């Protein structure tokens, strides 16, 4: 059970003056149950990439395999694939349309052909998992706050009970606490349901804190692929791509250069704190 991309290339308007290679020969495999992050600046190809995972975009060349099957094979049911590989886009405003939240979340399951009762049952479960309290079920989705809208949108995809959940910048426009709450919710979803989670983000700090594997996209190519602390050790190359490592990485490297024996691969505040305290202790002795 996995998503596998083999030599994926995607070209916009091929053969015209506007020709643009959004993806160039991208290979990757995402095993079941992984919490993965994708990072890259605007135009790096990350949005194009995630739309290949659920068959919203067809590669110009290359193969997309889901559980070993080619999703662009003639008889493959891509509608079903989209319920298995759920994609939540950046703006919840782009998907919320019903008069009531609960009804809106039912849209996905209903499209799968489920009865009203089954759909509602799933919707309630999804809303609980997305952390939206029952008192909002009958509210209009348009009157919710930014964070609540985001939860309703995530529930709308969760209700299809996907095996893979892709989130495109789920924290854009949220305030710091709203951001932490949504990310914590996603992390608990991952551990609770054991589904694969693919998180697209601009924030290196968030990626460092949550994911077990990260992919850096640059100019349509996979630039780095590994555990965050390993990828962040290439912080100078990341900078050349217009990205940056978390602030912690810079602090640790600067301390290292000044002769303090700290772990330069620390990426979160907790790791950094532990490492600095240890180093200072050693210094005192």
């Amino acid at each position: 059970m996995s998503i596998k991309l083999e030599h994926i290339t995607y070209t916009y308007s091929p053969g015209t003056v506007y020709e643009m290679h959004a993806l160039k020969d991208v290979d990757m495999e995402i095993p079941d149950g992984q919490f993965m992050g994708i990072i890259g600046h605007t135009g790096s190809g990350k949005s194009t990439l995630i739309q290949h995972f659920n068959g919203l975009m067809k590669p110009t060349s290359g193969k997309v395999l889901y559980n070993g099957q080619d999703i662009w094979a003639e008889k493959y049911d891509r509608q079903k694939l989209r319920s298995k590989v759920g994609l939540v886009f950046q703006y919840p405003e782009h998907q919320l349309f019903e008069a009531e939240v609960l009804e809106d979340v039912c849209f996905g399951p209903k499209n799968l052909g489920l009865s009203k009762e089954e759909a509602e049952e799933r919707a309630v479960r999804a809303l609980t998992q997305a952390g939206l309290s029952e008192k909002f079920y009958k509210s209009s989705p348009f009157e919710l706050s930014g964070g609540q809208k985001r939860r309703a949108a995530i529930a709308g995809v969760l209700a299809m009970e996907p095996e893979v959940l892709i989130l495109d910048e789920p924290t854009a426009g949220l305030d710091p606490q709203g951001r932490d709450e949504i990310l914590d919710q996603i992390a608990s979803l991952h551990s609770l349901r054991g589904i694969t989670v693919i998180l697209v983000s601009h924030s290196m700090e968030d990626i460092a804190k949550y994911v077990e594997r990260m992919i850096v996209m640059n100019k349509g190519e996979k630039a780095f692929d590994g555990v965050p602390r390993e990828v962040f050790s290439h912080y100078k190359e990341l900078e050349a791509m217009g990205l940056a490592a978390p602030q912690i990485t810079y602090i640790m490297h600067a301390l290292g250069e000044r002769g303090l024996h700290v772990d330069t691969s620390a990426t979160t505040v907790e790791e950094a704190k532990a490492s600095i305290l240890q180093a200072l202790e050693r210094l005192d002795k």
Partner: protein
Amino acid sequence: MGIVKAIKLVHDYYKYDESGHVEGTYRALDNVELDIEAGQFIAVLGHNGSGKSTLAKHINALLFPTEGALWLDGMNTTEEEDIWKIRQKAGMVFQNPDNQIIGTVVEEDVGFGPENMGIPTDDIWQRVNESLEAVGMTAYRHHSPNKLSGGQKQRVAIAGVMAMHPKCIILDEPTAMLDPNGRKEVLRAVKELNEKEGITVVLITHYMEEVVNADKVFVMDQGKVVMQGTPREVFSRVEELKSYRLDVPQVTLLAYELKQAGVKIPAGILTTEELVNALCQ
């Protein structure tokens, strides 16, 4: 009196029922006191719904106080005959770059404000040229705004405000919809305007890294100004900020955590350099 001064500023939003009667009120601003000196770089922090956007719209006379008053450069915003002067002197940049660009060509958009003010044609051109130069967008003057990146669009929006020759510019979460590069681009442009042209800047945001260089920071919560001071003063109160749904830059948080653990470093560290110097004396 400073360039922006508010006394006991209150703003209530009314909620109407279907027949048009007032059903309830929501207090977005609650006795806000503000005094901003000309030429300063001011940051207003607060979570979503804390009232910071409502405050911004008062400075530009897009909203009017329910109680109390606000003066811009000595003009009371409720004086109807001054309204266009106020809007000219206090330029406003909004969050969504697409929804504030009116022109279909960059330079025409920058000229929109001066056209409305009735500036003679030759002067409009001069203002447009200067403003585009100030934000570094001269090379894109003939482009369609739709083809620009988010950061570039926001710089065009800033140029559009600059061309009105304001004394003060208010930016309402100008970077919330941008990627990190766009964010840096916009902040650099804003900082330069403040330093080179001496324009008062009021930056409304919830990104903590953006306010490190501000002269003064106001923190809002539930319509009230709950904290104010230099970034160093405000950021040294980590727990308090967290209680207002905000956080501090990673370096400040790390320094705070180390200090809590007994390491002897000063409070309110704002930059990597400061922390490194404090640890490696």
